[in-house]
């Protein structure tokens, strides 16, 4: 880099820092209009930009800065006073200068744009109070201030300013040996330079340079250090696991020391990558100011915990989601002043940004005291947009309804504004937060306000993970996505795993959990492929064949993107803190892997990308979501909505549909197992007496059971609460996902209606009626035994 280039780079970095400072100072000035020190700061910053660019030949930039400077000097000297219109114009100037800087960055010249209009406005404003009244009304409405507690910290500590200089070779991070310092401006590439301490409004303005205590460090170097420390940690682990250590007392002592030092070094390096969340928070007052002005709202921004630190990568990752949430709160959350007043609130809305550490994670809350969220409207919109069905809405808790706003394609904005409400966003917010292993939750009180609560990890470099084995290879699963581990043995496998639409599912406490087989996904030949192949589970008969081969199934239950699924693995090993290594270019495109790590024994384990797996499981999950067994409570009132139906043949011609939600199990029973109790047909089923209904007889269909089936009977076990019955059918045909439309009312007791399903006229079974007519409540004892069953038998739960 030539010296001139270097000067230009420095100029870009400095100017950006200066502009960030100017921006903050202008906002602060609106709250404390008497801050002459602040004005002097602003003046000097603009002045410096102008002074330097004159040497570099950026005449357009110089001219604009000059116009702004003249206006500022009048303000500084008290010839005119700061009006919202002036502040707005100056902020616009900051934006324009930024644009020019970007232009210089990209093209080395300050662009064609002359900003004549802006310059004219700045010149006009030099004459004093000429602010258009409408603008001043709107502008005076939004004051931006910080929470008192925060202001105290600002005076107590130094202040860092980060800017948005994206140039790779100049990008640097401030390494501060002193404690946390609040940072006021966000960055994506992060040049941090210690600025002189800004006098607080009431402060004495005494400032001190912290240049001696801080140095700039190249981010690339920090990354490299981080990487090397990771290697060191792994090597340390290998040494600690070496059996040689146990033989030698001296070696043992020094290896312990090595261990300790490594841990401390790792911690230290990780700290250097930490940046205060104030980096992001700092830019929100401006965002809110501009937005609220547009919407004609009055909003005050308050901040708490700006000094809370996060890894730089995470800071960058949460910047956009947070901005979106803030914009959302301003646009949809906080009401217009007149609405607020008529609701008995102060006309000024409050947007509180809060960050704090909790349990090794960082919690971030964005709270507004606006109108909250009308779940009724959310539900209506959800149905209208096809995100959910009316049926599903009815079963949803308030919380679940609120979470609908994170569904793709959802927006409650009644009109599309230029602020938000484009119908994209909240789902992206959630995806982005989950990508970094975070979670997002929402709390809303109608009329009182909304809180978005984010939890994000402190760092992504070292994470707790579950180590599993499949096909003799080890894989790591980040623990944030892990819900539970399920181990099925012998009989249970058959009982719990089924096939729906050709995909295997596991029945887990009343829900169908889609299963993915890791062995198949990563293409590793699994030795015990028996029951892991979904095709072998097509029918109960096949499943029992496979049972001999397979006697243990390990399922890792994972959650990402709001969807749960089970991952079938060979072995579950242990949980470990792993050092995340990025994948090389060749593997980066593979969506199921998030990275790699090196295990204590020196071997590599790939880290699974749970979100990527979810997408892979996507289709399956969509299907099974509809077939939650707890739809039982609802019965089958929801005709007209989409339902998963079990299609069975009864007699020669009869085709029946049974809502799958009511179906507990499909069984094959021996004719000989049929017994009589109280004159009715029953069988012994799982230590209970199960009433049997021969559908063919009850519904008087033509024909007799197939002769081929010999003495085996196909039985559909139906359950409702604690009542269960077995329906004997001739053949299980299929499971379909149908939009049921009754074509004909019922003409027969036991039949709800008739519909056309897959080209066949199909009678829909009135399961509730059948249960009422035939099912018998189990005796007290069996009820208790049933409830206590620790396996969580899904049947009849």
């Amino acid at each position, binding site marked *: 880099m030539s*010296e*001139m280039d*270097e*000067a*230009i780079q*420095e*100029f870009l970095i*400095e100017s950006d820092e200066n502009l960030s400072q100017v921006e903050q100072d202008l906002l602060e000035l609106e709250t404390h209009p008497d801050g002459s020190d602040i004005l002097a700061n602003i003046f*000097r910053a603009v*002045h*410096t930009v*102008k*002074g*330097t660019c*004159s*040497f*570099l030949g950026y005449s357009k930039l110089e001219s604009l800065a000059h116009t702004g*400077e003249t206006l500022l*000097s009048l303000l500084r000297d008290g010839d005119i006073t700061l009006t919202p219109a002036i502040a707005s114009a100056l902020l616009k100037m900051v934006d324009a200068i930024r644009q020019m800087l970007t232009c210089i960055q990209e093209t080395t010249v300050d662009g064609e744009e002359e900003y004549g209009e802006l310059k004219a406005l700045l010149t006009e404003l030099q004459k004093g109070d000429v602010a258009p009244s409408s603008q001043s009304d709107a502008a005076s409405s939004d004051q931006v201030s910080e929470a008192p507690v925060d202001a105290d910290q600002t005076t107590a500590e130094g202040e860092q300013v980060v800017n948005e200089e994206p140039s790779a070779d100049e990008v640097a991070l401030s390494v501060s040996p002193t404690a946390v310092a609040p940072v006021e401006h966000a960055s994506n590439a992060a040049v941090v330079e210690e600025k*002189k301490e800004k006098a607080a409004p009431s402060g004495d303005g005494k*400032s*001190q*340079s912290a*240049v001696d205590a801080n140095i700039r460090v190249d981010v690339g170097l920090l990354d490299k250090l981080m990487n090397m420390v990771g290697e060191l940690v792994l090597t340390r682990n290998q040494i600690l696991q070496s059996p040689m250590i146990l033989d030698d007392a001296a070696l043992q002592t020094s290896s312990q020391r090595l261990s300790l030092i490594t841990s401390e070094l790792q911690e230290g390096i990780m700290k250097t990558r930490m940046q205060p969340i104030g980096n992001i928070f700092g830019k929100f007052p401006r965002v809110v100011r501009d937005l609220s002005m547009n919407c004609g709202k009055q909003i005050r921004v308050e901040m708490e915990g700006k000094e809370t630190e996060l890894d730089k990568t995470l800071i960058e990752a949460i910047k956009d989601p947070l901005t979106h949430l803030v914009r959302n709160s301003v646009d949809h959350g906080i009401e217009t002043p007149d609405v607020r007043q008529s609701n008995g609130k102060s006309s000024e809305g409050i947007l509180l940004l809060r960050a704090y550490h909790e349990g090794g994670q960082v919690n971030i809350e964005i709270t507004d005291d606006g109108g909250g969220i009308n779940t009724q409207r959310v539900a209506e919109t959800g149905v209208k947009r096809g995100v959910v069905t009316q049926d599903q809405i009815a079963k949803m808790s308030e919380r679940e309804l609120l979470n609908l706003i994170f569904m793709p394609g959802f927006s409650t904005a009644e009109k599309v504004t230029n602020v938000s409400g484009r119908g994209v966003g909240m789902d992206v917010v959630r995806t982005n937060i989950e990508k970094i292993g975070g979670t997002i939750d929402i709390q809303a009180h109608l009329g009182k306000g909304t809180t978005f609560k984010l939890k994000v990890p402190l760092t992504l470099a070292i994470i707790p993970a579950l180590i599993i084995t499949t096909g003799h290879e080890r894989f790591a699963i980040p623990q944030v996505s892990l819900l539970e581990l399920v181990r099925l043995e012998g009989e249970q496998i058959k009982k719990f795993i089924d096939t729906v639409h050709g995909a295997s599912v596991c029945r887990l406490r009343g829900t169908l959990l889609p299963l993915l087989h890791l062995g198949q996904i990563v293409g590793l030949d699994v030795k015990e492929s028996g029951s892991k192949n979904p095709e072998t589970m097509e029918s109960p008969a096949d499943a029992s064949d496979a049972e001999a081969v397979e006697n243990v199934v390990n399922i890792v239950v994972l959650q990402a993107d709001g969807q749960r699924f089970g991952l079938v693995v060979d072995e579950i090993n242990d949980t470990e803190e792993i050092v995340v290594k990025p994948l090389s270019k060749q593997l980066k495109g593979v969506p199921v892997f998030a990275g790699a790590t090196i295990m204590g024994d020196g071997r590599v384990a790939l880290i699974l990308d749970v979100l990527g797996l979810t997408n892979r499981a996507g289709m399956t999950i969509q299907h099974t979501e509809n077939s939650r067994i707890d739809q039982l409570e609802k019965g089958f009132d929801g005709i007209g909505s989409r339902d998963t139906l079990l299609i069975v043949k009864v007699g020669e011609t009869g085709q029946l549909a049974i809502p799958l939600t009511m179906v507990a199990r499909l069984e094959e029973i021996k004719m000989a197992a049929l017994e009589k109790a109280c004159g009715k047909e029953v069988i012994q089923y799982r230590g209970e007496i199960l009433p049997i209904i021969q559908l063919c007889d009850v519904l008087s269909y033509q024909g007799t059971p197939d002769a081929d089936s010999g003495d085996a009977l196909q039985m559909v076990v139906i359950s409702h609460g604690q009542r269960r019955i077995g329906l004997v059918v001739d053949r299980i045909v299929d499971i379909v996902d149908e939009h049921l439309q009754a074509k004909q009312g019922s003409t027969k007791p036991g039949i709800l209606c008739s519909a056309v399903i897959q080209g066949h006229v199909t009678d829909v079974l009135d399961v509730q009626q059948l249960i009422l007519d035939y099912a018998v409540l189990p005796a007290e004892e069996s009820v208790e035994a049933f409830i206590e069953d620790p396996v969580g038998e899904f049947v009849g739960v």
Partner: protein
Amino acid sequence: MRALVIDDSKAMRIILKQILQSVGGTSVEEAGNGKEGLDKLKSMEKPDVVLVDWNMPVMNGLEFVRAVRGNPTYRTLPLMMVTTETESSQMGKALAAGANEYVMKPFTKDVIQEKLKILGIK
């Protein structure tokens, strides 16, 4: 010629350093503000000329000039103030405080060369 450049903008320092080197500067030291400038002045070999910006945080150019002139060692040290036209009206103060010369931004190599000549520095 040994020189000390005091400016809060690193970009400006680079530019000034470059200009000074092109007119015969052999060693050019830098400082980010007046206070740092004073420290630097004490630690370095006595320079032939000091270029100091007016507007700086912590200690501005005017304060620096006063502080330097207050020290008998530097009573004759050639001081050149670098400034912009908005401060030119205040240049009287700077000269009164003891600055030898002032240069207005933006300037060219020739201007610096001429000013150095006036101050008798080679």
